[in-house]
């Protein structure tokens, strides 16, 4: 119950800020990557080609389904609604191709997961960044 209320409060506070959020795509500093193009981030998050410039396989991490950040991220990345993103994944999942990004249950797990998973890459609000994370693409509104 408490967890749910925490999440609800989180969702509400994020909702108000999502539209003007400073969204960034980040990886672990240890990967040694400084920059990714928008196209590369599209390829990684839409499961077209999940490879980092370092040669390592990329493991994208999604914000929770209900997160306003997720909605905002895909809007800024490819100009698509979440329903369109869901339809896109329905095609790939049910034709047995690529899997969608791993999805966290809580928005605050994204940062730690980026570091915990080899090749982890995620998007978050700039204020959620920790010193171990490196911004590789800024998602301007």
């Amino acid at each position, binding site marked *: 119950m*408490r967890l749910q209320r925490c999440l609800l409060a989180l969702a509400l506070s994020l909702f108000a800020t999502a539209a003007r959020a400073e969204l960034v795509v980040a990886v672990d500093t240890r990967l040694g990557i400084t920059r990714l193009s928008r196209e590369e981030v599209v390829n990684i998050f839409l499961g077209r080609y999940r490879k980092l410039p370092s040669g390592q396989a990329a*493991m994208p991490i999604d914000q929770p389904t209900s997160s306003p950040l997720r909605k905002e991220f895909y809007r800024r990345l490819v100009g698509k609604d979440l329903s369109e993103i869901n339809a896109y994944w329905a095609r790939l999942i049910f034709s047995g191709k690529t899997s969608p990004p791993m999805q966290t249950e809580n928005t605050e797990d994204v940062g730690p997961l980026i570091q*915990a998973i080899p090749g982890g890459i995620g998007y978050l609000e700039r204020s*959620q960044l920790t010193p171990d994370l490196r911004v590789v693409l800024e998602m301007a509104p």
Partner: protein
Amino acid sequence: MPLACLMLQPVHPLLFALALALPIGVAAEDKDPPRLGIKGFGTLGLARSDDSDAGFVRDLSQPRGLTTHWSGKIDSVLGVQANYRFGERTEAVLQAVSRYRYDNGFGPEITWAFLRHDFSPEWSLRAGRIGTEFFMLSDSRLVGYANLTVRPPVEFYGPLVFSYFDGLDLAATTQLGSGLLRGKLFAGHAAERAPVAPGLSWNLQGSRMFGGHVDYLSGPWQVRLGHTAIRFSHEMPINEFAGIDVLGLAPQLAAQGTWSHYDSLGVVYEQGALQIQGMVNRIHNETDQYEDSWAGYLIGAYRLGNFTPYTGYSQTRSSPLSLPAEMPAAQAAVIRYALSYSHSDQRTIFIGTRWDFAQNLALKAQVDRTHGQPDSRFLFRETTSGWDGRMTVFSLALDFVF
């Protein structure tokens, strides 16, 4: 993770209090994604036409069509899929689908049952029962939620009676210029049957097939060139269908042992709210039993909030066959009549909208207006002598995924 909860800014006082109140460990969870995932998709569809001189079907895997009464049979489908991960790179997928099929029933079928291994971000191999990709998007044409229209354009996808095959496919992806170049090769054996007439079906099981395609994806563009070939291992029951010994009189009509070739070119453009899809295909049959055909379609859609209105045009035409052998006129007439069932010459204009009214749910309404020649019968069932080639179809569909 109460600590991480605290790091969010701006920190709401209520949030702060809640986070403090959270017992340590409650939110800590297993970081490994679950190994087993069960998902599903489905459509509740209703459609009717304004014509009782021909039965409208979604594709030729369906034995009987709908006419002037609302019917749920041609578009309704339910699929359940289990994915099991053996590790980061290996996955098993099992999918069962129930839909209106060749034997006039809804018996569930195992449509996918394969192992996928990603050797690297570039190379991926699947082995087992896999979806066929004769044309772009053809392996997801039962997943209504993934598609814009109520059903894939019948002129283009209607001749496809193959949904899956037993074999393997190998896919490779590489960067080329500013985009991605992707290629796939597949080979195996067909595993289905196709309806011919009520109570009569063509066994396609064991028919050898292979093919491949090349995709180029760049920005909003995706282009695909594909080819598939299939060699029929069983004879089409044309003798039973015609009621005379057709193959004895005209051996060149045999389908067994002959190849059919499917070529296609598809282009998809998706920029923000705008979606455009266009494809052309050509089907060449070595047997003289089926006419060669070409088909094409174009769909345009623009999303306005939760609504995505769309419109499209599709067309197909086949080349009439000639019967070279001399034979008694009465028998020639019967054979000609049997062969005329593979002729098509028609075009359809359709308009509709998709409404994403809730998460994982979409409602669609569509009207199709077909103008064809009276001898355009291939894509219909049970055409009568009154068939004039013109039909309007009204469709509603509720698509869902879970």
